């Protein structure tokens, strides 16, 4: 049976039904009735006939693509996939990314005049690799060199904060705003958060903020978005539109669809030039410690050739030093000169290597690095840059502990918990 989406077909079985072909799967066919409902018909119980081929009328994507802008637009939108690009797809029966960059103008017509959109890649963010961050960083750098005054990067939300951290270290200094956004609710529906996210991101892309930021809803109402420093952002909820929060640092500000920005925190203004650094060592792994943690995995990774580890430890950054396996693991890594960065799985708060004797014991190993209140995910990314820069342990330590782009706080502000 060779039907195409939209063909009018007739199904003959215990009843006769006419409708539009939607898709075929396994042993059934889905057709859309004139009422709009889709029904499932068993291929064993029905025969199917073509009544009329699909007429290509009133297709939106055909219509709105025709215009070309003579004037060069100032903002570049680089699309890399994710829920924001999603259109309903019948092959999979779920959402999957649209390839057409003009889709973003359909979601937010406000972008058309000032934003040049391109589809750069199409990957769900959970499948991204460090090498993709490099490709994206290079593309952003290229756009900046071409003269664009601001960059909007759209992507999936699952690992958005990893990409944000990577780009923060990669483009330092930065001469234009780089705003990362996406959506939690697919853009094929009227209630999508994509519209406000794109409009607010445009406002940030036109601002003076010379940092990589994430711009997503600030609350579940469509009221304002938050501008969150790339190295301080974390996805804190599976599905709420305000899932992204600023951790251990106040957001840079609130941005409204009407263009208004309320600054809440300090930020770096646009630099003279952008410098791109893509030297990163991607052989790093992230571990989690917990009651019953088997420290042998440290030895396993070291033997496998990984150049650095980040462990999200408990509390202040404590590892179960009474487990032989952990002691042995740390010892082994130290002997092999593999740096281990300690962060806290509490997410909020600063690690401290002095308060408890266990962590003092850990600090006896030369390769243990505490990084204060840096986020685990950010530390993971930053370690790659450290290793890309140098092999020397002391230099690695210095790099990790130094606040480069706002990823570490000097002072622990009081009102930055659960905001």
């Amino acid at each position, binding site marked *: 049976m060779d039907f195409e989406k939209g063909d009018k077909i007739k199904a003959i079985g215990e009843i006769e039904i006419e409708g539009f072909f939607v898709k075929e799967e396994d042993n059934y066919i889905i057709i859309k009735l004139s009422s709009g409902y889709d029904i*499932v018909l068993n291929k064993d119980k029905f025969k199917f006939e073509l009544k009329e081929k699909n007429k290509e009328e009133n297709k939106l994507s055909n219509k709105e693509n025709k215009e070309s802008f003579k004037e060069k637009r100032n903002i570049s939108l680089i699309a890399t996939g994710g829920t924001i690009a999603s259109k309903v797809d019948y092959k999979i029966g779920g959402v999957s990314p649209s390839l057409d960059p003009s889709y973003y103008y359909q979601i937010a017509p406000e972008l058309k005049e000032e934003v040049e959109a391109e589809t750069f890649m199409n990957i769900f963010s959970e499948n991204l690799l460090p090498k993709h961050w490099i490709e994206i960083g290079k593309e952003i750098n290229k756009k900046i060199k071409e003269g664009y005054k601001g960059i909007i990067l759209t992507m999936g939300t699952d690992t958005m904060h990893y990409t944000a951290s990577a780009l923060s270290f990669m483009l330092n200094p930065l001469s234009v705003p780089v705003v990362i956004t996406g959506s939690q609710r697919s853009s094929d529906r*009227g209630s999508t958060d994509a519209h406000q996210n794109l409009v607010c991101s445009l406002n940030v892309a036109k601002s003076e903020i010379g940092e990589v930021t994430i711009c997503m809803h600030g609350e579940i109402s469509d009221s304002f978005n938050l501008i969150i420093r790339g190295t301080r952002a974390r996805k804190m909820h599976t*599905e709420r539109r305000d899932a992204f929060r600023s951790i251990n640092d106040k957001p840079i500000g609130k941005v409204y669809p009407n263009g208004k920005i309320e600054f809440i925190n300090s930020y770096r203004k646009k630099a003279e030039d952008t410098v791109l650094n893509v030297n990163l060592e991607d052989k790093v792994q992230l571990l989690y410690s917990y009651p019953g943690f088997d420290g042998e995995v440290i030895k396993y990774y070291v033997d496998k050739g990984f150049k650095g580890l980040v462990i999200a430890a408990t509390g202040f950054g404590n590892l179960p030093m009474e487990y032989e396996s952990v002691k042995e693991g740390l010892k082994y890594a130290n002997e092999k000169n593999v740096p281990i960065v300690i962060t806290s799985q509490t997410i909020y708060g600063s690690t401290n290597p002095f308060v408890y004797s266990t962590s003092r014991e850990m600090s006896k190993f030369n390769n243990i690095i505490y990084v204060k209140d840096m986020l685990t995910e950010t530390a993971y990314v930053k370690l790659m840059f450290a290793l890309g820069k140098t092999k020397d342990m002391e230099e690695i330590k210095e790099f990790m502990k130094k606040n480069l782009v706002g990823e570490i706080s000097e002072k622990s502000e009081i009102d930055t918990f659960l905001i």
Partner: protein
Amino acid sequence: MKCGFEWHFQLNTRKLFCEDISEISEEVVGKIRRKFNLSISEFDEIDESAKFEIKKSREVIYEICKNDCLVDVDEEPPHEINKEALQLALNIATALNCKTFDKIIVMRKNIVDGSVPSGFQRTILIGIDGYYNFKDKKIPISTVCLEEDAGRKVGEEDGKPIYRLDRLGIPLVEVSTKPIETTPEEAKELATSFGLFTRLFNVRRGIGTIRQDVNLSTEKSNRVEIKGFQNLRKMDKIINEEINRHENLIKLAQEKGDLIKYLNNEIYDITNLFTETQSKIVSEGIKKGKRVYAMKLPNFSGVLGFKVQTNKRFGGEIGDYLKALYNVSIIHSDELPSYGITENDKQKIKEFLKCEDKDAFLFFITDSKEKEIANAIIERINTLLKEVPSEVRFVDENSETTKFLRPIGGKERMYIETDLPIIEIPKEMKETAEKYRNLSVESIAKKLDTTLEKLEVIVEEGKLGMALDLHEKGINTDDFIRVFIEGYNFVKNKFGKEIDKNDLIKLAYLLKDRKIAKEAVRVILEKMIEEGKSIEEIIKEHNLWKIEEDKLKEIVEKMKNLSLDRIIMTIRGKYGPVVDAEDIARILKNLNE
């Protein structure tokens, strides 16, 4: 006239796609604001009705209640479908003799009026091509669907609608008929009958739990969808008025249709003519910074004032449309002087616009979009003077008319719910549903060996299940009503107490076995509460056993020359409620033969 019906009734289960309870709440625990945007459906087309909604204000306020969760505010994908609701829907579809499916697909129906935070309502086609037995007819049922109810509008703030989400997600069964040739009176009868039918199932009761829509067309006019008949009492009247509206519009189109050629969309700012006005509507609008815009309608005198219904004029048809689109009212020359606008004002406007007596004018007050509004007015007059437009209207019970709501949506409005897989209906569910095949009010009445009226009483009291159950055990319906409804309610009303089910069953059996008289039921129950004793004790102590047949014969024989009524009164007076009138009648008859 041809009429198609659509009934929506709520099921008495938890919400359709989450675990919240279905209830209407007055307690608001939070508020959020959302904005709506154009959305693209399966076939890459923008839906007509969605485009229409974009013309209106797109910000919506939602009131959140205790029975709302992240799913309801569109911050979480739907949970697995409520199986109890699905079974109920299957039962109803089967009772209506529909063809059902082995696998069903949850669809999203675009709703851009803001009543649903996600922008769509989830709906599932459960059955097609059935029929409903009504009198001696088979009313053809086209579809039975299971869907989520939407939020309910509770007000407005600065032109933004406020919807309360307590109702959102409550399972709704929608039954649609094919259009049938009928009359307004029969339509009302059918609606009433169907209402009773729904209560054979576990449905929610109370105001707003069942909504009726009617799709109407006449010989000369196209289909109009009328939503929201809540009060069946006026249904026939309103349908009659609607038919009149169609006929009058057609008449007007025939007589005055050629006047369209004089229309133009020029607007004139006449705000300055109202600086001294007594009219509150105008002066308050001006105070808020709005302007008054007038349009001249050459040769239209009398047209706007033309009555299309008892309580609606042609001008009102235009006014309703503008209200729906732009939340703006119009005032026209045929209705002036009125609204505080004097004859003098009217003349001033006429002069300004250079109107002769044969001309009409109208004006509206707004602070924006005046050109758009003018175009909409011309568009609407054009449409109405050509034919009766096919559109969606809502019932206004006060004026007994219908008003424009929105254009009819097409197939583009629905697409597959991508967050849920295709649902397979298990065999057990299908088998359970089969038990309901061809169930109707008449068939239940027959089963219970009773009349429709008495069945209605039982259904209204929500005791159908019990009646059916006990009927199988030999309790006839009259006795059931006497004990479980009349007796129960008597005690509840008098003492505020509820008799235990087991006691009621005991009494019912005693009636069945003819051990107590019908009149004794109430007495026994009363004394039970007053004296706090059991049924057996009360009957014994108050001698409430029925008089035995032989003894009764003796007694009646002695009085056989008296009238039946006299005999009954005498015996009851002397012995108490221990005899049934029909027993006395029977004995008397035998004696006289």
